[in-house]
């Protein structure tokens, strides 16, 4: 009998927790603590502990599928790949779109964008980050020069004031909650900004600013005005390292905690108290996620937070910063690899210069120089889509129209591990290997690059995504440009053209539990846990204040739809539920969809917990079980988006932030029917 404890990193969220997989005669039979891992030190959340179980799920995709006469039939790789190659050949650049994955490796994301740019001649390549941190890029690039997490998560415990804005970290980033708890036990003040009284607000917060949904800019402007009124802005920092302060001060002259209180519904004294606590801190840390970004004013929300950090100088030191929290295992990495309509790999902006750089790097000509479509435009305007490891039918707003658009495509290829709600609409489905069924690197939330090793074989004929893309490229006549015998060879190419990754090798990663933070420009460079220590990423190296004004959400309650709908997540399930809803323990905890509804609203409707009710917005209707709770305020409801039978995104509003095309997942008008 052969027993092995093999280390790996959890496949779910952005924390990047280590664990041991226990193998008995080659089969994974359990997950055990890996105590040396610096992020989680031998602890895991319920999802991580049970993660390996989905690998052996009976309904894993094992063979390619081709749609024929309305149903799928199995096919050989040869037949399926030939069909796809045939259908993709000759498709004009503007008609093709690639949708990449927040879960595939860097090597795989890199190949998919290369495929789209070299073979299909288009910059129509996007991934789920459009729906989570496109607002971050729009908000942080002009202000601090880079849209990445600025501190290592491990250093968060050094902060003495932590602002948690629009993120329920107890449920969505448990290991970061661990760090915040440590800080709190040492006396740190924790401020939570969230319209919901989440677990994080209830059990981590000293001050909960429970604002009206979508009023974050007003709140933060109010906080900044309070800081200025007290003279608590960091004058030295502002002087030495920023520009634009006078304009900000002028723009905030009409702002005040009282004015913010009117808009947000949060008491002025509380706003003031929170602002002063943050300003007076030695090390203030802002953590933010979807509650800030997923709005039509998402980029403004982020900008306001950046202003707040620059105003107080809480940036550029370990445990500080204005920190976006990308939630997927490769939410950061797939973007690093250029799966974005306006960025080539390494965040080289799409344009003639970057095209030339990669023409040299890849030995090709005529790379596209115009920005491509963003995610929703790819879905609505392209004719042919190649989609890998993502589930827009469940994750994109206005699901009904997403399905319509996908059914309208001339040809739709989906590459995934299960027949997801999106794959159901495909013409061809290709079975992927995932997680520990292949090797590769990912970049977790704090730019932490770690390696996942192959531990078991994929089921049936499923193959790694990088292999599939290479075979497809080969069939389309591009063998020499996609001639990789292994993921390792792809990483070598990445290192040669993505300077932030130049110093990162498999060898270095194997030796270091916890990985290496990029930028890592050379093999003897230790990596960069803290950003902006000396300089910002802007052309003049300074942080730039940018004043923003409060604008309300696109769709607020009215007579027909009197309540506010917010969507989000639960600890026990992950995003569209593809993996977690196939796991017994997790399903046992949360077996079905629910809507959180305030006791007063429940009373008005005459319902108790457990009652099935219907929710309707201008986009559609769903039926879901009520959960009466004080977590949502009167007039607001909350639905997690994990459940396909009560798909929250049937209801959500596809209205977009004009600056970054981020949909307003967090606010729309809804009515309940009993």
């Amino acid at each position, binding site marked *: 009998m052969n027993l092995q404890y093999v280390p790996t990193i959890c496949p779910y969220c952005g924390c990047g927790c280590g664990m041991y997989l226990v193998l008995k005669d080659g089969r994974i039979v359990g997950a*055990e603590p890996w105590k*040396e891992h610096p992020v989680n030190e031998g602890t895991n959340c319920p999802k991580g502990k049970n993660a390996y179980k989905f690998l052996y799920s009976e309904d894993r995709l094992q063979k390619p599928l081709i749609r024929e006469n309305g149903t799928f039939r199995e096919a050989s790789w040869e037949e399926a790949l030939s069909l796809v190659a045939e259908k993709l050949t000759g498709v004009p650049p503007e008609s093709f779109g690639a949708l990449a994955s927040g879960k595939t490796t860097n090597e795989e994301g890199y190949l998919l964008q290369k495929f789209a740019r070299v073979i299909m001649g288009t910059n129509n390549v996007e991934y789920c980050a459009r729906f989570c941190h496109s607002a971050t890029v729009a908000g942080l690039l002009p202000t601090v020069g880079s849209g990445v997490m600025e501190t290592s998560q491990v250093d968060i415990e050094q902060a003495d004031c932590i602002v948690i804005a629009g993120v329920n970290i107890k449920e969505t980033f448990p290991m970061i909650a661990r760090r915040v708890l440590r800080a709190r036990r040492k006396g740190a003040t924790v401020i939570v900004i969230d319209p919901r009284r989440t677990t994080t607000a209830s059990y981590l917060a000293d001050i909960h600013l429970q604002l009206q949904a979508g009023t974050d800019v007003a709140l933060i402007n109010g906080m900044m005005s309070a800081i200025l009124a007290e003279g608590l802005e960091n004058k030295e920092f502002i002087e030495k390292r920023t520009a634009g302060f006078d304009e900000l001060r002028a723009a905030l002259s009409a702002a005040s905690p009282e004015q913010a209180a009117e808009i947000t519904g949060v008491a002025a004294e509380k706003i003031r108290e929170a602002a002063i606590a943050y300003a007076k801190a030695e090390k203030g840390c802002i953590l933010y996620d979807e509650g800030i970004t997923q709005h039509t004013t998402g980029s403004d929300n982020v900008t306001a937070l950046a202003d707040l950090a620059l105003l107080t100088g809480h940036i550029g030191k370990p445990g500080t910063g204005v920190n976006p929290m990308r939630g997927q295992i490769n939410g950061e990495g797939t973007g690093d690899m250029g799966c974005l309509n306006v960025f080539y790999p390494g965040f080289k902006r799409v344009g003639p210069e970057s095209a030339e750089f990669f023409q040299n790097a890849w030995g090709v000509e005529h790379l596209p120089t115009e920005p491509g479509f963003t995610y929703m435009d790819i879905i609505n305007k392209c004719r042919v889509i190649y989609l890998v490891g993502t589930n827009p039918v469940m994750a994109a707003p206005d699901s009904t129209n997403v399905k319509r658009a996908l059914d309208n495509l001339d040809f739709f290829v989906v590459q995934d591990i299960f027949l997801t709600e999106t794959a159901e609409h495909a013409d061809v489905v290709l079975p992927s290997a995932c997680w520990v069924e292949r090797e590769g690197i990912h970049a977790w939330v704090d730019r932490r690059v770690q390696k996942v090793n192959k531990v078991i074989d994929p089921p049936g004929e499923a193959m790694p995504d990088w292999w599939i893309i290479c075979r497809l490229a080969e069939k389309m006549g591009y063998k020499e440009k996609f001639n990789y015998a292994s993921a390792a060879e792809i990483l070598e190419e990445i290192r040669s053209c993505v300077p932030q990754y130049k110093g990162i090798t498999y060898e270095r990663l194997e030796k270091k539990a916890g990985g290496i933070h990029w930028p890592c420009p050379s093999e003897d460079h230790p990596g960069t846990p803290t950003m902006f220590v000396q300089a910002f990423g802007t052309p003049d190296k300074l942080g730039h204040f940018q004043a923003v004004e409060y604008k309300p959400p696109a769709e607020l309650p009215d007579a027909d739809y009197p309540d506010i709908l917010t969507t989000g997540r639960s600890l026990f399930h992950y995003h569209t539920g593809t993996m977690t809803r196939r796991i017994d323990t997790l399903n046992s905890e949360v077996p079905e969809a629910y809507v959180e509804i305030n006791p007063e609203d429940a009373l008005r409707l005459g319902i108790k917990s457990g009652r099935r009710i219907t929710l309707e917005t201008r986009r559609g209707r769903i039926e879901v079980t009520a959960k009466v709770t004080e977590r949502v305020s009167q007039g607001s409801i909350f639905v997690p988006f994990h459940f396909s039978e009560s798909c929250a995104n049937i209801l959500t509003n596809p209205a977009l932030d004009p600056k970054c095309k981020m949909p307003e997942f967090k606010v729309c008008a809804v009515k309940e029917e009993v």
Partner: protein
Amino acid sequence: MKGDTYWAWSSDPAAVDRGECGGAVTSLLKFALESGQADAVLTVKARDGNRYDGIPVLITDPEEVAATAGALHCVSANIARCLKEFLDGASDLKIAVTCKPCDAKAIIELAKRTQINLDNLLLIGLNCTGTMRPVTAQRMMEEEFGVDPLDVVSEDIEDGKLKIRLGDGTEKERDLAELEAKELGRRENCRRCDLNIPTMADIACGKWGAEDRKATFVEVCSERGSEFIDRAVEGEQIKVEQPSAEAQESRRAKDRAATELARQWQEKDFAQFHGMDIEERFAYWFGPSGQFSQCIKCFGCRDACPICYCKDCYLEADRGRVPGGEIPPDVMFPMIRTAHVMDSCVNCGQCQDACPMEIPLARLIFMLNRELAQIFKYEPGMDVNARPPLRTVTDKELSLSGVELVL
């Protein structure tokens, strides 16, 4: 015979040279395999030579034993769980297991619950005065010793000092109490563990009493252990000598000192609670801002705990006892687990290591266990024939008002 003591070292001069204490344990493990007394050896190995990353390994090839030699102080692998969960409780495999006192106690408690077949095990006990958490240890090496953690080739806890040796032979030491005042040093449960010599195993091996010899002091603790040592000597795998009276006394003295220090830590650890009244205590653990309000229901504690073994755990959502999907879970979650295990807690600390929210679980449960131990005169993990209080409820006790047995 049980109670016999020896200085022991390997018959193989090369092993004597290589081994920290004369290579006796290594030779004994090899002998167990070669003689067929064990089908496999279960021990802990530094993965890829990393002293901060210890994994259980199952060895069937005697030649692989040598690579696991040497005490690892920065790891605390859950050996008992490995046996129970992944090796079928040794139901059909004879296994020689190296075990610290907590490992051995855990194994015995699991054996009482028919989760481990003690008949198939040869327990090679290892003296222990504590291990350190790997991330803490690495930080300590950098901040307190000023060395690269990877340069350390051995650690030792001796006479109140933490001593390390680097690859180039340099030795450094720091005062253990000073380190532990800063929450560096040993795991919390290790500091208060008053059982350093695992006499509940088949043999107990350690440095105390070896004085300056390159030898291991071996105490025979059972008939099985006695036969095993006799055969090893007959088979010329190890050489043995009678330890001097001074050595015996020295060993006893060190044990007493370590035990005394542990009892002081117990008092320190539990003092804050002894000062609270029942309402304060309840609020501290189970109140709205209590420790358990941070729980995220990962079940890490339950998985790690050697006393927890139920296939259909009472805490799981489908049992209907604790509502599903709630964070923090209903107060019944921590209360039921505590109530189910506290009569038998062996203070292994695996639960506290496993908690993402750093709830001081072992502190609570072992504190309660110490109180119960006094009341029921029951010491967990020592005698496989001693049955835990929860399983020895008498009719008389059941007839007391307010006492119920719920199955």
